[in-house]
């Protein structure tokens, strides 16, 4: 049973009549059937509905570059034909009246929803049941656990992720796939369960940066040509950031190897020190997240406190303790950070950092630390994690590429350029 990997290539061969959407869905269902007993990436799948949709897609002209491709939808995003539980017992089995905007847009673009992928509780820390396909004893990361695992295990070539701290980039790194967090505000969030409004971003899990970009564009309701591969080597800046204090050998070594590969391939690589406002970015991110989460989850915390995990209760308590002044101060830090990004990108096209502190931790209770992701979720800059390297335990270790504000094209192009260097 072949893995479903390259989404654009799959759609192209469907368009050429070499294969069909029905065959692609059948292959996906076969992979799920054979493998998901172990990996547990899926909360629910809808075989009949997906096959019916696929047959319809086969009977019409391609509506976009991903026409006929089966995808996974993270279970914090509403689907009008499948229950959406947000990874919480409070909402277990709830059937939304409508598709989230991004789901309607991807269906409109001809893609097929295979099912819902496992999310941690409200996309926070309390884990779901998913396991890392590279080693079932390890976490797949979170919160987009099922989406990362389903793509890594070849069930579907694309799945939706969301990120408030590090919930796309980290699981993608742990599972060895491409994760793409678009610039904040790129993909409409109507119908997504909000966790922290000024941070939450919808993004993509894929096997190539081009696939991730095409997927995110479709979810944003944009039909654009894919970013052409960059002919010249990007100018990379290594930004160790304050998160470096928590880096493990695996990620430090991977970053060094990636930098060396870039230099060998003719790119310039320089060290970049983040401007002074970034000294407070990690703390300010936590203030914004907990303050907003306490408000976004007001219904759940006031009516179903006992059904929140202890980890989420702790977040709620921190949010409750966070003052309006502290929040206003954190927003001010964010605008200073955003403003100072120009300095950080003055002489480089993109920044390179580890995607996570190291390889996926052993065990399923802890989905890993988002330290290398939080700064960039905070600023809303685009991020792509590029797989290819591995750590001492043989598990994947991603390299994170960060583009300037709104510079999604630079980040995607650099990821495309870097990818083959890491997989040699």
């Amino acid at each position, binding site marked *: 049973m072949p893995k479903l990997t390259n989404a654009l290539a799959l759609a192209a061969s469907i368009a050429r009549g070499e294969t069909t959407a029905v065959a692609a869905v059948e292959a996906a269902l076969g992979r799920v059937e054979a493998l998901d007993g172990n990996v547990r990436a899926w909360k629910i799948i809808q075989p009949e509905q997906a096959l019916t949709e696929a047959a319809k897609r086969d009977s019409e002209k391609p509506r976009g570059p991903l026409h006929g491709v089966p995808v996974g939808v993270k279970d914090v995003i509403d689907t009008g034909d499948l229950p959406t539980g947000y990874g919480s017992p409070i909402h277990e089995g709830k059937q939304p009246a409508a598709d989230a*905007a991004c789901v309607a847009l991807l269906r409109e673009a001809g893609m097929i929803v295979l099912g819902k992928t496992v999310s941690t509780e409200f996309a926070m820390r309390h884990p779901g049941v998913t396991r890392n396909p590279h080693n079932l004893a390890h976490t797949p990361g979170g919160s987009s656990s099922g989406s990362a695992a389903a793509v890594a295990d070849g069930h579907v070539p694309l799945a939706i992720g969301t990120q408030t701290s590090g919930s796309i980039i980290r699981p993608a790194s742990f599972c060895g796939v491409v994760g793409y967090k678009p610039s904040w505000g790129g993909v409409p969030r109507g119908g997504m369960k909000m966790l922290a409004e000024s941070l939450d971003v919808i993004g993509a899990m894929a096997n190539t940066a081009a696939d991730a970009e095409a997927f995110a564009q479709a979810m944003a309701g944009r039909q654009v040509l894919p970013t052409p591969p960059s002919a010249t080597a990007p100018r990379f800046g290594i930004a160790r950031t304050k998160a470096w204090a928590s880096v493990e050998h695996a990620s430090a070594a991977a970053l060094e190897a990636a930098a060396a590969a870039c230099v060998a391939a003719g790119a310039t690589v320089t060290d970049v020190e983040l401007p002074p406002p970034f000294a407070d970015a990690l703390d300010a991110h936590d203030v914004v997240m907990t303050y907003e989460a306490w408000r976004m989850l007001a219904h759940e915390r006031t009516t179903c406190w006992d059904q929140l995990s202890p980890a989420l209760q702790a977040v709620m308590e921190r949010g409750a303790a966070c003052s309006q002044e502290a929040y206003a101060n954190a927003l001010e830090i964010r605008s200073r950070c955003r403003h100072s990004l120009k300095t950080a990108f003055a002489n480089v096209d993109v920044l390179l950092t580890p995607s996570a502190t190291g390889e996926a931790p052993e065990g399923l209770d802890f989905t890993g630390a988002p330290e290398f992701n939080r700064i960039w979720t905070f600023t809303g800059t685009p991020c792509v994690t590029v797989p290819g390297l591995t750590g001492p335990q043989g598990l994947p270790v991603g390299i994170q590429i960060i583009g300037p504000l709104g510079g999604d094209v630079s980040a995607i192009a650099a990821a495309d350029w870097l990818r083959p260097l890491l997989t040699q």
Partner: protein
Amino acid sequence: MSIEDPTRLGALEAARAIQAGTLTSVALVEALAARREDRDVAVCAWATNNEDGDLARALDEARARDAEDARGPLHGVPFGIKDIIDVAGLPTRMGSSIYETSGPAMADAACVALARDTGMVPLGKTVTTEFALRSAGGTRNPLNPKYSPGGSSSGSAAAVADFQAPLAIGTQTGGSVIRPASYCGAVGFKPTFGRIPRAGVKSVSESLDTVGILARNVADAAVFAAVLEGVEAVDLDDTLTRPRFAFCRTPAWDRMSNDAHKAGRVAVDKAREAGASVIDMDLPPAFREALEAQSVIQNYEACRSLAFELRFRGEDVSRALKEYVAAGYDTMRERYDWARNVQAVCRAAMWQVFSKISAIITPAAPGVAPENPSDTGSPICNQIWTMVGAPVVNTPGMTGAAAMPIGMQVIGPPGRAAETLAHAAWLHRALTKK
């Protein structure tokens, strides 16, 4: 002491009476229910009714609130909720036939849960235009049923102005809180963008959608906004003696009626008489393109946010909405990026605008309400301020043709809602001084 007609009480007055034991939340809900029974046949402010069980639920809640200590500054006070916002146990029909037969929402929107948690009582859902956009929902102006209440928060403005609720939640993407407040003679408050959480509110245009408030006085609006934001309410600064206003004609000036021009001039005179300094001010050049940019952003984002309804339930979408979003489909990415850039430039210029003044005064609508209940009017006086995310208060007190109201907007710098509200309260007193 007994209260003759509790429906006339402002929200803070009612809360104080409940605290003092001269009123119960149940008695207040019952009085409002009687008022609705009597009046709503003509006004049509409510989107839920007895079949949905809105008042029965409100009475149950009120009973529970009466049995406990006050949990917040508006404990026991009922409020209406615009019908694009989820309330647990009630349907969210969004003014759309697609959702006409929707079952009850399982959970409260974040802002509703925050209000409930401070002891406030959801009274029912108020009429919205279809998805808070163009197509009117049948509500009449309570001051004269031949006139529009404005939109899209039609029912919220009408219910509050008609004493069927002391407070209601609305939303604004173009001018949907301030304009209906102006038309109905209510206080409207659109807080700084991003402060009242939007989880559980139907998303139309993410860069613009703002949850706001309809009330009958500025102090009530200020406290309700704090509750919905999940922060401590602070008393309005009532020590302003010589506030510094600017009167701003805005790029919409030439498209306003003579009524609005005249109301603006009279308001300035009254403010000066009451002791304010009022300078004339033009907006920086970046704002010349602001109206156009706001329209592009709203249109581009709305047709994407409503993708499910437009693409997969198109047969149940009004023609007006289809026509409205048609342009959005064809908007090029470059045009949208241009508009977002105008938004950013204007936002950045707001500090320059407020370097010498504390608040802007300008008419809240291009005239009095249209004499046609299905024409909710034009948002041209509001779009710019929604786009820059500034706090805006509609201050009633002026009238135009047929003695219908025209409000004055008080606009402050983003993030400075408390000062803006204090200035609006000051202006409200100045405009209503006999």
